[in-house]
């Protein structure tokens, strides 16, 4: 009697053990199937795509950039290392035509971009694959606050780039460029990466909303019309005074002399 009871109890324990195995197995199968269905396929595809871009980017890099930046982008005496500069720096430099450099000098000048969008993206993917760095920023002008952007621009940018983004001279032949030809994305990239001698303003210095605001202000101030007539480069009182002294006052003098001679 007791033995049969014990037998039943042992069988129940075994059954419960089997059931827990079955549950565990089912859970594992479900998890595995879900993972197999959802995760790896997309991942595999994007990795392949990415590695293709990285590969094409490396080829482009080795034909056009490696002479100065080194075969592994480690930098040489002529040019800085590109490890860790991120996609944003590559996109800024190449899309604004500053790189490849036309000739060595105090500063790279903006010119026509030498590569198309796909090639720039490939180079950016290659450099970004070397080490983590700033991504190409997503600029949303609608998110920007024009007034905040103006305040931030005048405090942090206008000392070099002028209050209207007209640029200005720096030391030893370097200069802060005019912002009129820069696209909103390029302005944001310059803020984030600090090209050449420009200081860097990272995400903890300016958040994305603040960068959007600055970009919105730059877009506004460089594309606004000139209700006063000639803008004279928007450099403020210096060219304006020069025009008054060289054109305006002599014109008045000539008129006065003419009236005096005719009287």
């Amino acid at each position, binding site marked *: 009697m007791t033995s049969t009871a014990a037998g039943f109890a042992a069988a129940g324990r075994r059954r419960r053990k089997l059931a827990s195995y079955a549950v565990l197995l089912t859970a594992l199968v479900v998890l595995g199937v879900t993972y197999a269905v959802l995760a790896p396929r997309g991942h595999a595809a994007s990795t392949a795509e990415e590695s293709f871009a990285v590969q094409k980017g490396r080829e482009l890099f080795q034909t056009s950039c490696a002479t100065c930046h080194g075969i592994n982008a480690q930098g040489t005496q002529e040019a800085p290392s590109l490890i860790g500069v991120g996609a944003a720096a590559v996109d800024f430099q190449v899309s604004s035509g500053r790189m490849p450099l036309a000739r060595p000098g105090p500063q790279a000048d903006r010119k026509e971009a030498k590569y198309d969008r796909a090639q720039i993206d490939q180079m950016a993917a290659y450099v970004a694959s070397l080490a983590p760095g700033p991504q190409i920023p997503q600029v949303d002008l609608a998110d920007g606050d024009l007034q905040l952007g103006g*305040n931030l621009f005048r*405090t*942090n940018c206008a*000392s*070099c780039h002028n209050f209207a983004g007209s640029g*200005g001279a*720096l*030391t*030893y032949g*370097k200069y*802060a460029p005019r912002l009129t030809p820069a696209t909103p994305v390029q302005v944001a990239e310059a803020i984030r990466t*600090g090209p*050449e*001698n*420009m*200081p*860097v*303003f*990272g995400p*903890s*210095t300016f958040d994305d909303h603040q960068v959007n605001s600055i970009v919105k202000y730059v877009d506004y101030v460089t594309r606004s*019309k*000139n*209700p*006063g*007539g000639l803008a004279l480069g928007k450099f403020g009182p210096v060219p304006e005074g020069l025009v008054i002294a060289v054109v305006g006052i002599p014109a008045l003098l000539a008129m006065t002399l003419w*009236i005096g001679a*005719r009287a």
Partner: protein
Amino acid sequence: MSTHDSAGGESLTGNTSASAPGDTGRPANPPSAKSPTGPEDVGPRADKRSERLVATCFGVSSLAAIAFLVVFWALPKTDVAYTPLLGVCLAVSLFGVGVGAILWAKKIMPDEEAVQERHPMYSTPEDAAKTAAVFAEGTEKTGFARRRLLRYSFLGAMGTLALPIVPIISDLGVHPRGNARQLKTSPWKKGDRLTTEEGAPVRIGDLEYGGILTVFPNGNTSPSNSLAPTVLIRLRAGENQPRPGRETWEVDGHVAYSAICTHAGCPAKLYEQQTHHMLCPCHQSTFLVTEHCRPIFGPAARPLPQLPLALDNEGFFVAGAAYQEPLGPSFWERS
């Protein structure tokens, strides 16, 4: 005989223009030089023509003034042509009135040269004598020449009256010795948080390498605190070469310097993160940030003052001490 003599005398002087006494010396306009049109501008028809010309000028002026109003109301103020058009309309309007007035005077009014004789500038001998007599009488009556005590005390009083000007002049600026405390006191106190213009305190890690921020003491950006702006810069490890005795003034590569140029007080904030030049836009004074902001070019003679940095227990940047030297442009008693 006498006729011959006078003729010879005239030819000897060589004076061919035969100026009459009282002539202004200016050659009279020959009548034919008055206008290139010559006799055409006399007569009733020419007069009518001139009248129409002047009236046309005034009419153009009126039209331009009306055009000004039209532009003012009809054109949107944001239009590129708005301000230039207003200017052109106003200029044409004023110019029309001016040209009309000149033409009126030249074409319609009779052209006659009028000479106004100046009256003699000197006083009559009687007046001169009378004035001299008044002076002599005054000298005599006051005894200015005789009474030495009065004369010297009067001159002395006039001299000492000039003395109060001296302290007034010295009060025009800050007195170099007595009242110079305001030049030498720092707007930063020990423990002041470094805040952005919006008042947000700056934490360690907020700046990237090569980053710069303009900071103020505890959010005080008031204009009366105009010497307070300071720049916080993050250098890469090992780049900073501090002045001896200031090795502890940096925090993890972060350094802080006054943004006010030591030459003329402009904000010198044009920072180049690769060359570490800090440029003042007013007179091109250049400071080297990695070498305690010593001047390397331009008229500034002193380094930018350095603010000792520290961290509070929440990780925010604070002033480790006040500025140790006077901020802003140089002055003669600055040490």
